[in-house]
């Protein structure tokens, strides 16, 4: 399948894209129905999501709790701001570690792409420093570090 992309835009955005061999309706449902979300939104091997509450409607709240079976866990809470069935979801979320991280404003789009779906998730953090911290628990700079390594091999 197609690979995930993860890029930054401006000072405060993170963009993740991924193609799926399923209709926008199916991908949208897998992002909104708790019994489906619990099957895939798990992170590293060994983690489970024992609590998955998602009141999937504009103004609805959600709460996801993860556990690793070794006494570690954290949870995410958020509110859904907009829902356009099978096409677009806008929500706000924060992680509790246990202190809440600054609000992450997320727009997820599900666009038809041939017989499948192109999912694009745009995260908007309140400021550049918050994004830096998020990426430090994440990603983009690692890719940069990998590019540095790559350049050293060329």
């Amino acid at each position, binding site marked *: *399948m197609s*690979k*995930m992309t*993860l890029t930054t835009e401006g000072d405060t955005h993170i963009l*993740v894209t*991924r193609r*799926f*061999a*399923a209709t926008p309706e*199916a*991908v949208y*449902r*897998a992002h909104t129905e708790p019994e*489906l979300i619990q*099957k*895939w*939104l*798990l*992170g*590293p*091997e060994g983690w489970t999501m024992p609590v998955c509450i998602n009141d999937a409607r504009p103004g609805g709240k959600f709460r996801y709790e993860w556990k690793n079976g070794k006494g570690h866990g954290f949870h995410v809470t958020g509110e859904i701001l907009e829902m356009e069935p099978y096409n677009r979801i806008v929500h706000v979320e924060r992680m509790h570690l246990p202190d809440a991280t600054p609000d992450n404003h997320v727009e997820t789009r599900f666009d038809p792409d041939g017989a499948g779906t192109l999912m694009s998730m745009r995260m908007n953090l309140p400021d550049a420093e918050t994004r*830096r911290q998020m*990426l*430090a*628990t*994440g*990603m983009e*700079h*690692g*890719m*940069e*570090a*990998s*590019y*540095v*390594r790559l*350049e*050293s091999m060329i």
Partner: protein
Amino acid sequence: MTARTANLDAAFSALSDPTRRAILSRLAMGEATVLELAKPFEMTQPAVSRHLKVLEEAGLIVRRVEGSKRPSQLAKDGMEAVDQWLAMLRKALARNYDRLDKVLADMKSESGKGTR
């Protein structure tokens, strides 16, 4: 917090600056002195030295003494720790979507059964 995660915090903080990333790219091609780094970046030597200090404290570069010069080079261990950590996190996110591929395939076969 373990020493290892403290180092990673410092490393990611150091990597958040585009000039410091550019300096690392340059060092990936080989050792360089402050003077050699200052030229292409059109920076003063004290400014380059400040960036090098941050990178050194984050464990991403090492410097040796050669007369009055202190040439810098990439610190293999520090760079590898960052790579591994990121590869792991990126993999966790990618793995979620691989799992979602399976969920979607199951949904498809479920609905297929219903219409047959």
